[in-house]
């Protein structure tokens, strides 16, 4: 009985409190509904002259004027294009030096929400052997400077959009770079390439009397390059053998991975993707290369410095003891 009376006594104030809260909420909500930015000025409109007509040269319909890029020098030795259609591995008896290429099947089409795939990636890189790097670098810089100048001259005193910029660069460079813009500007793809595997095994590994001799034993070398991210970008790779031979490979990166097979009287020493560090969008440079021999120098150095810092920190901390 007493509890019932107590509950009744508490019920009254609780209802009143709820009513007060309800009223406050109603007032706040009505205030929010009425609240509006005061966009219209109270005074009379300013007497501003009409803006001059925007003069924009139409550029969409005319074909871009192609600017010849420097001729790419021939490389030696030249492996098969990584963009060649996938083919089965064949016994390489006539030309043992030429590597075989096996590419992964193309990826299934992406969903609509994802950024559009590149329209047509170029089949060849704008790369040159190390001797002509400076020339290429100079040409790229010159092209970019021309593009920036053209962009400025065309759109000065106007309000260009990023499409205007991209169109200008396409025009000046003479290339359709929409495959790049789609990924780098509008997409969220990550660019990351890695050397998945690089090893050499004797061709006649089944021979019980096999005695490996440097320069005499024939090896089959397999190199697998892997595109970890979704960003498709053409890359080049350098394969070094222990007889000093170096092979440049180009891969358009369209497939998820590609395998190069070599038959040489030498073992692979190292493989490196993007040896000139030109693909600055690559997320992880550390997996861009692979060496068959362990590289302990860097590990020992990092460990030594880390240990010193730990010791120093411990010594500084013990100063408080």
């Amino acid at each position, binding site marked *: 009985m007493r509890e019932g009376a107590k509950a009744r006594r508490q019920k009254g104030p609780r209802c009143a409190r709820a009513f007060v809260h309800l009223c406050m909420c109603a007032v706040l909500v009505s205030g929010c509904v009425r609240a509006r930015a005061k966009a219209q000025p109270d005074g009379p409109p300013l007497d501003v002259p009409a803006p001059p007509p925007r003069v924009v040269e139409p550029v969409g319909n005319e074909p871009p004027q192609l600017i010849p890029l420097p001729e790419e020098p021939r490389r030696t030795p030249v492996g098969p294009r990584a963009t060649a259609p996938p083919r089965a591995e064949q016994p390489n008896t006539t030309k043992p030096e030429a590597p075989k290429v096996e590419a992964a099947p193309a990826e299934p089409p992406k969903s609509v929400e994802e950024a559009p795939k590149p329209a047509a990636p170029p089949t060849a890189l704008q790369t040159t052997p190390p001797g002509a790097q400076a020339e290429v670098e100079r040409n790229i810089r010159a092209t970019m400077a021309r593009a920036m100048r053209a962009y400025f001259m065309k759109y000065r005193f106007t309000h260009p959009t990023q499409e205007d910029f991209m169109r200008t660069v396409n025009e000046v460079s003479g290339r359709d770079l929409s495959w790049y813009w789609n990924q780098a500007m509008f997409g969220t793809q990550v660019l990351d390439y890695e050397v998945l595997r690089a090893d050499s095994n004797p061709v006649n590994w089944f021979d019980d009397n096999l005695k490996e001799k440097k320069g005499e034993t024939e090896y089959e070398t397999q190199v697998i390059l892997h595109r970890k991210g979704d960003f498709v970008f053409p890359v080049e790779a350098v394969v070094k053998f222990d007889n000093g031979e170096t092979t440049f490979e180009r891969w358009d990166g369209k497939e998820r991975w590609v395998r190069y097979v070599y038959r040489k009287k030498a073992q692979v020493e*190292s493989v*490196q993707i993007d040896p000139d560090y030109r693909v600055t969008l690559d*997320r*992880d*440079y*550390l*997996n*861009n*290369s*692979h*060496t*068959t021999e*362990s*590289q*302990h*120098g*860097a*590990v*020992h*150095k*990092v*460990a*030594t*410095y*880390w*240990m*010193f*810092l*730990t*010791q*120093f*920190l*411990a*010594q500084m*901390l*013990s*100063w*408080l*003891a």
Partner: protein
Amino acid sequence: MADDQKGPVAAGFSLLWRRQGVLWWVFVVNLLCGALGAGPAAIRTAHALSHSLAGQKLSNGFDLGMFFELFRLPDIDLIRYSTSSYVFAFLFFLFMLFVTGGILETYRQDHRLRTGDFFAASGAFFWRFVRLLLLSIIPFAIVGMIYQGLSKLADHIGDRAIADQVGIFLGWAAMLIFLLLALWVRLWFDIAQVRAVARNERGMWRNLWKSWRITWHDSRHLFRIYFSISLVAWVTLVIGLVIWAHLPPTSLPLSFVLLELIVLAQLMTRLWQLASATTWYQRHAEVVAVEAVILTTPHPEEIVETTPSPAPDLPPADLGPELPPADA
């Protein structure tokens, strides 16, 4: 003793040199803590770089960009492995807190303690030094607050000054004042530790008050001792780092030896400060008999086993009437 003719700094160094075993033990423990703290990071780095040409940028030089890649990349994320370094640094801190009693006792008695005696002294003073450490938080916090105030003042003046570098110089001055104040607080608590060991003091509040009076009374002399030794520490650190910076990047063994020498020099100067404080206290502060405090473990008393000898022929005691058998 020949050291009586020397000043406290030189006598402290002589004491440190005579008892250099302590220094080597501390250094070995520090080295172990460093190695164990760096282990996980080294393993992770080996996993990432042992078959990568990117490591050549670190081994044939020291490319900071590549080094920071090791921290940035989520697959490696060396920052995560710095936890072990902190843990082992803290363990070394605890170790030093523990053995400080033994070290001061060694310096006070100036003879090589047996291992058991050393650790007995360490254990005897451990909790007292923990209490001192907790009490030291108060003055160190005050010094920290003073530094905060000074740096804010330096910023305030620097913002209003016409010359650009006024704020920087004032900031350095604030840092210098902070270091000197911190050194003074350290000196005060070192004297407290020395006094606690010398007098076997148990009340740390009382000990701290007495040490304050001693330190304040002869502040100029004591501070000069500590400042000169600290100067040696800073100079050796700077010289060592300059030499290290000029070493060829591929000479890793030499670099390792040099860095360890730097750490050894830092530890040595810290123990030198303790030895000098002990020497100074024994000479100038309070006369305490060396034998006053007995912390050594007592030697086990010799137990003489008595060999059973034939009972002497004594007249039979009167045991009363013989009891009848139970089953009777």
